[in-house]
């Protein structure tokens, strides 16, 4: 069976990362921004696993474990913040969050 060329993984992960980054910038719903963030993280994970596989060492795969746990911790904090905001404002649109100005 032929192996899939390295560049395929790299291009896919670059596309995922770019989509995620654009999503964070242009979407206004924190939950969707979250998902975009996850996409960025997982793009990096894909790169790690792909390179790890190509080099034949496990370092990259172990890094992915750490990243997954860290991402879970981040999501927990983020969801808690969103719930806190929702309780006080009953809306989570990021554009409506403009009490912080002069």
């Amino acid at each position: 069976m032929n192996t899939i060329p390295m560049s395929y993984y790299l291009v896919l992960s670059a596309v995922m990362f770019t989509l995620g980054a654009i999503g964070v910038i242009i979407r206004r719903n924190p939950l969707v921004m979250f998902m975009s963030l996850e996409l960025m993280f997982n793009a990096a994970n894909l790169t790690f696993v792909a390179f790890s596989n190509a080099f034949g060492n496990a370092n990259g795969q172990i890094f992915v474990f750490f990243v997954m746990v860290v991402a879970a911790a981040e999501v927990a904090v983020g969801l808690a913040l969103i719930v806190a905001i929702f309780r006080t404002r009953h809306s989570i649109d990021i554009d409506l969050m403009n009490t912080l100005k002069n």
Partner: protein
Amino acid sequence: MLEYLPLVILISLAAGLAVLVVILGHSFGPHRPTAKKGLPYESGMTPYGPGTRRMSVRYYLVAVLFILFDIEVVFFLPWAVMFRKLGVFGLVEMLIFIGILLVGYVYAWKKGALEWE
């Protein structure tokens, strides 16, 4: 790439069949819509209120706790696979890890995060 050919055939067969059935149903089936038939549950209760009901915020708390404690399995699994090789050292390491998790668990418990009301 040849070894993927059966897969391609299967996928195109499945997709083609689905499309075909929908088209056949649309073009040959009778269309006599009435108000009753348009209801979401044809012979059930009459629905009222908005369709997208908000979930209670409490579900989020449970979800957050679930994410936190669920993802730790990612570290348990490799340890379980290599359990014999890692020996006592791995066991102690894992006990420390569980200890840290327990701190979080006790905190959540005492703060009342596990109570529904």
